[in-house]
């Protein structure tokens, strides 16, 4: 059983950071890379149904914890995603960087947002990114579109989960 917290004692340090700064900065990167590595699960899929979880994590960090990433962080993270995802190298670097720029532009118009608007923005970007990746990687005539719509929906539904993870970590690492 944990000791009850005594608020009015010298133990109470409201401004103390909970994690060393370097680790607090590395955690968002680690979570996005772990999301990209979801492709190493031992399944040989015949249809592309697995959501690109790295991108969802990136969007959740960017929308819910504005300062977790520098504006340029999308490109190196996208590079890592390209190495493990099977897309042609450079597609995630391009799409993720453009997503960051798009969020920046949206943020100027839509200064006060709530969670539903965040989800809407994320959904739009997810759809754009997956469709963009499809046209980059697969010939236009390929029959992947029905599966792609399913993948987009599944990925959109992953956003709340990613938001939960981000909120949990943000609590632990003592927000910004």
């Amino acid at each position, binding site marked *: 059983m944990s000791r009850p917290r005594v608020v009015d004692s010298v133990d109470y340090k409201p401004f103390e950071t909970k994690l060393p700064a370097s680790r607090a900065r590395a955690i968002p990167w680690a979570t996005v890379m772990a999301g990209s590595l*979801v*492709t*190493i*699960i*031992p*399944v*040989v*899929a*015949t*249809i*592309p*149904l*697995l*959501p*690109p*979880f790295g991108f969802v994590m990136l969007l959740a960090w960017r929308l*819910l914890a*504005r300062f977790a990433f*520098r*504006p*340029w962080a*999308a*490109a*190196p993270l*996208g*590079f890592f995603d390209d*190495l*493990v*995802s*099977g*897309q*042609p*190298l*450079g*597609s*995630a*670097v*391009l*799409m*993720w*960087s*453009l997503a*960051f*720029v798009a969020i*920046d532009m949206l*943020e100027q118009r839509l*200064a*006060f947002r709530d969670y539903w608007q965040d989800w809407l923005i994320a959904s739009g970007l997810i759809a754009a990114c997956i469709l963009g*990746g*499809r046209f980059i*990687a*697969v*010939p236009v005539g*390929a*029959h*992947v579109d*029905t*599966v*792609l719509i399913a*993948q987009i929906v599944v990925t959109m539904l992953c956003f709340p989960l990613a938001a939960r993870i981000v909120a949990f970590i943000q609590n632990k690492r003592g927000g910004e």
Partner: protein
Amino acid sequence: MAPARDRRTGFSRRRQYSVFLGYVLAVAGAVVGLVLLVASTFNPPAFSALRMGVAGVTTPVSTGFAAVGSSISGIPGAIGNYFFVKQENVALRADRARTRALLMRARTIAYDNRRLRNLLAIRERSPEPVVTARLVSSSASSGRRYALLNAGRWSGVKPGMPVRGPDGLIGRVVETGPNAARVLLLSDGDSIVPVRRTRDGLPAIAAGRGDGMIDIRSVNATNVRFNAGDIFVTTGTGGIYGPGVPVARVTKAGSDSVMARTFADPDTLDFALVEKVFMPVPPPRPIAPQ
């Protein structure tokens, strides 16, 4: 969420410049991505060393996960086997009795076949196996259909080698790392295999669709009728795949271009056999001095 006014950087020049540089780098990232994309579109194997370096780390992890997963998912099957072993035994005995006659006939035919081939003195190339390995993971979030094999250059796997499963053709190796290889599955949109119908030897092309099925297209004749259940095997044309490897069975009747399902089911994570290139392209002849 309240807006973050981080662009109002105050009077600190250092902070102003660092914020500005951050945005310059963000846009530069997109430009770099575009350049990389163009490079990898025009020269797909350009970054294979990097990709396969990462795959060399992830493949053992996937292999471990696969071992754990299969041992856990094997538990219900093992329990079922324990209780139903007797019925299964009876069924297997009956099956053996039924197929014995067929087996004897097949042996006779195989012997005859060998003898007649010798008589004809056909120069036969038999495909040579390189290594037996497992497919451990795949590009499940991408529209491309790649799988990772847990054997690579150290086991003698080279790009271009055909990969087959116990039931039929799986695909071919496109990139190799030291301990991993990337296999282009038959169902990928870029995969094309020359095939023929077993019934009458009708030549056709098996092209991947991207959604797990493949298209069978006729090559030299129009208005060709395909029936459901037609079986296609490789021809050996092109020199990569040896002849006679089962590829696909047509699912729905049609003409000229029909859907088919591959025999090899890559998602069972079964063993895959890497074979040598059936008939490699001979090296270019040195140009004689003028």
